């Protein structure tokens, strides 16, 4: 137990040196570290939100809305396909997961099924798995009915695609707020985690993410364009309410459901002020395809109104004075400078596929974050000083060795945490301090054992040997059970609790390591230095 080959000693020292190098970046600020040579590790400990201050938002996407949109689009596609094939329809309707259509003439059934069959596509994943899964099922129902159903797999794929798009949009919007290194990640099937450190005003962020920002321009019904009551949907025209902020509150507009041009074709959106009225407006520009569509529409509809719709509410319905061929213009709708700014950001980042709701929010203001760091630091210093004093008081010189082991332990924990880029939270600091208190346990086990063996009459070297040997098994047993609890905590928890579990777990392994190597090495060196002195070695324990 007390023999350390030169190779072993060198490897222990090497590990400790590596720990110093990996922990070093934490002592300097970011710029200094960046200027170091490339082979040196540069990762610093990340401070968690509860120490740095910032917002943590867990957003859910409204899959119901997503589904409704999908069914709507499907119905439009069905109509378009049948019109193309010159097959008359009596009516179309929506089911809970699909579209129903009745064709006019039963003879057309075969042709209709063939045309609609083209709408069904194989899922992208089935190319890889070679399966037959498709996103749509087309079936005949009775002599004149056809029913199209979205498959489960198809639905799930659309949700995944939508989530991907939503995350990108969220990222662009968060970036526009201009903070450092936000975290945006998918959580499970329908959730997005957004962590924005250092943000002061979360309301702005929440407002930014709260709107889908779907912009579209629609044709207005020639005769019944504007009315006080909500007209039923017919012939492709649907009633849209006026937006809350507009002058026309309470009015209903009768607009063509399929837009002339939509936000997808927007290439620029900037806030500004109207030259004449000094109102806050948004000036926009379409891409080539959008400009063409818009140009064609405005050429055919001079002196008639068209509606600007945002999130299914009509912002305004100005008259087309002349054909707009350049694809640019401005939108007004009772904006303030702030809301115009916000909307511009939302439009530029793209529309969200569905509304996002905030399921969970944990925000910490910067002042509390700084206070927490201070408290943690103070408690740590006091706690560790007291522990160190106690250890030395109870275990004498060997207590000193244990303290060196503790320092090595702390160093290793910081090094590992920096290297794997884990985040330090307030419970994490508590975990660190707790680990120090518990790491002492390994040494206590060994030292108490040595004392006992000495009492039983063993010689110094034998007692020390027995102490290390016998205690090893017990140390492993007891630390492993704490590790099991830490693993479960990691799996269960989020954020701060995870931080605690991580520091605890790392601490368990490093404390075993330091007790077995560093402390043992020091004791072995001490024994070696005592050999050849008096015959009887007095153990300073």
């Amino acid at each position, binding site marked *: 137990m007390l023999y350390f080959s030169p190779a072993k000693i060198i490897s222990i020292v090497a590990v400790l040196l590596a720990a110093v190098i990996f922990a070093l970046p934490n002592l300097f600020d970011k710029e200094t570290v960046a200027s170091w040579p490339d082979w040196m590790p540069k990762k610093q400990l990340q401070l968690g939100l509860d120490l740095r201050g910032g917002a943590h938002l867990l957003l859910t996407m409204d899959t119901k809305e997503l589904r409704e949109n999908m069914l709507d689009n499907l119905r439009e596609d069905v109509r378009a396909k049948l019109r193309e094939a010159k097959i008359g329809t009596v009516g179309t309707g929506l089911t809970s997961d699909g579209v129903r259509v009745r064709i006019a003439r039963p003879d057309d059934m075969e042709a209709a099924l063939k045309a609609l069959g083209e709408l069904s596509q194989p899922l992208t994943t089935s190319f890889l798995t070679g399966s037959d899964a498709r996103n749509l099922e087309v079936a005949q129902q009775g002599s004149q009915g056809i029913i199209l159903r979205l498959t489960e797999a198809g639905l799930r794929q659309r949700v995944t695609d939508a989530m991907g798009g939503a995350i990108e949009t969220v990222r662009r919007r968060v970036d526009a707020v201009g903070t450092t290194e936000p975290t945006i990640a998918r959580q499970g099937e329908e959730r997005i985690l957004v962590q924005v450190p250092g943000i002061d005003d979360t309301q702005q962020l929440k407002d930014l993410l709260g709107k889908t920002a779907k912009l579209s321009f629609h044709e207005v019904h020639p005769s019944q364009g504007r009315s006080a009551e909500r007209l039923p949907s017919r012939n492709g025209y649907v009633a849209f309410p006026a937006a809350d902020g507009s002058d026309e509150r309470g009015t209903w507009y009768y607009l063509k459901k399929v837009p002339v041009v939509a936000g997808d074709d927007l290439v620029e959106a900037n806030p500004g002020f109207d030259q004449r009225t000094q109102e806050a407006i948004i000036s926009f520009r379409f891409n080539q395809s959008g400009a063409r569509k818009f140009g064609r529409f405005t050429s055919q509809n001079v002196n008639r109104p068209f509606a600007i719709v945002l999130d299914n509410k009509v912002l305004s319905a100005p008259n087309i004075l002349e054909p707009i061929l350049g694809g640019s213009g401005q939108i007004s709708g009772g904006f303030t400078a702030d809301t115009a700014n916000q909307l511009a950001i939302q439009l530029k980042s793209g529309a969200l596929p569905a509304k996002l709701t905030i*399921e*969970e929010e944990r925000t910490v203001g910067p002042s509390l974050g700084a206070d*927490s760091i201070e*408290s943690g630091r103070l408690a740590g210093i006091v706690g560790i000083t007291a522990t160190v004093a106690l250890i030395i008081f109870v275990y004498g*010189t060997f207590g000193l060795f244990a303290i060196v082991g503790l320092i090595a332990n702390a160093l290793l924990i910081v090094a590992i945490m920096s290297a794997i880029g884990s985040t330090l939270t307030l419970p994490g600091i508590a975990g660190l301090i707790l680990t120090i208190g518990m790491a002492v346990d390994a040494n206590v*086990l060994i030292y108490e054992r040595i004392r006992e063996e000495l009492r039983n009459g063993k010689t110094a070297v034998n007692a020390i040997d027995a102490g290390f040997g016998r205690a090893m098994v017990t140390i492993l*047993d007891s630390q492993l059970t704490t590790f099991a609890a830490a693993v479960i905590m990691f799996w269960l928890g989020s954020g701060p609790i995870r931080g605690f579990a991580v520091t605890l777990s790392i601490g368990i392994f490093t404390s075993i390591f330091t007790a077995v190597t560093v402390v043992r090495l020091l004791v072995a060196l001490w024994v070696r230095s005592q050999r050849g002195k008096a015959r009887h070695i007095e153990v*300073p324990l």
Partner: protein
Amino acid sequence: MNFIPQFKGRQLFLPKNELPIMAFSRMAFFASMVAMVASIVLWSSMGLNFGVDFKGGSMIEVRAKAERANIADLRAKTGGLGLGDVQITSFGTPQDVLIRIEEQPGGAPAQQAALKKITDAIGDSYEQRRVEVVGPAVSSELRTTGIIAVLCSIIAIILYVWFRFEWQFAIGAVVALVHDVLITIGVFSLFQFEFDLSTVAALLTILGYSVNDTVVVSDRIRENLRKYKRMELPALLNMSINETLSRTLMTSLTTLIVLVALYVLGGEVIRNFTFAMMFGIIIGTYSSIFIAAPLLSFLGVKRDWSGIAKEAPAATTT
């Protein structure tokens, strides 16, 4: 090595003083039973003060920009908003106030709407230090995961101890663990401390720590069972506990010192967490000494580990 001062330490807990632990075990069992029953009664009657993590709703910690927070004024401002029960309590310093809003009907958006109402009502004279809003979906998930985590831990530990030792040791360990968790919950119920995710984390840590203790004692018991095949079980258990007493108390002491520092200096945010850990360590140490080991004398343990059948369990406890 010669530059290092050589000095001995002072033994804090005298060895081999043969404290009659087993003699107290009857009393300890009784006291523990009472405490456990009391905890269950408290839990079912007074209930636990669940935080937003488990109950849903919102929590805002605000700090007055003035010298002191005016709680009555805050109550007046927030009372008339139609948000149901709004709890306003002082939190640490005279400037800090904790505002709790219960879960609003209407799912996650309703919680955010309620939060906005409150922040608008409080106005500029208060700085927002911390906000936690948990919608119904997430809170129910956290409740489930919390319970599963504690149960899983207990099961994992039973399996581990059973694997390493005999089944009697596993029973002893589990009884001690359940005892620790129950009484800690009872204390939280009695004082209505806030019970949230970090409390569960503390409970899990206590589980790990308590079993840590129990394993060390069990290990010594097993060693002695092999060494002293003739000794009567109660006496052997007593000796084993005494032999490990030094270590058990020392480790508890070092951990407690650190926790006390955290409790006093670590700030309000982790105070509940630190308290749970402190209490848990004390209870865990007590249960390892007075519950887990003495239980073995009731259950009886194999004396000869060379494969011969179990000896009859000891008839008496001293």
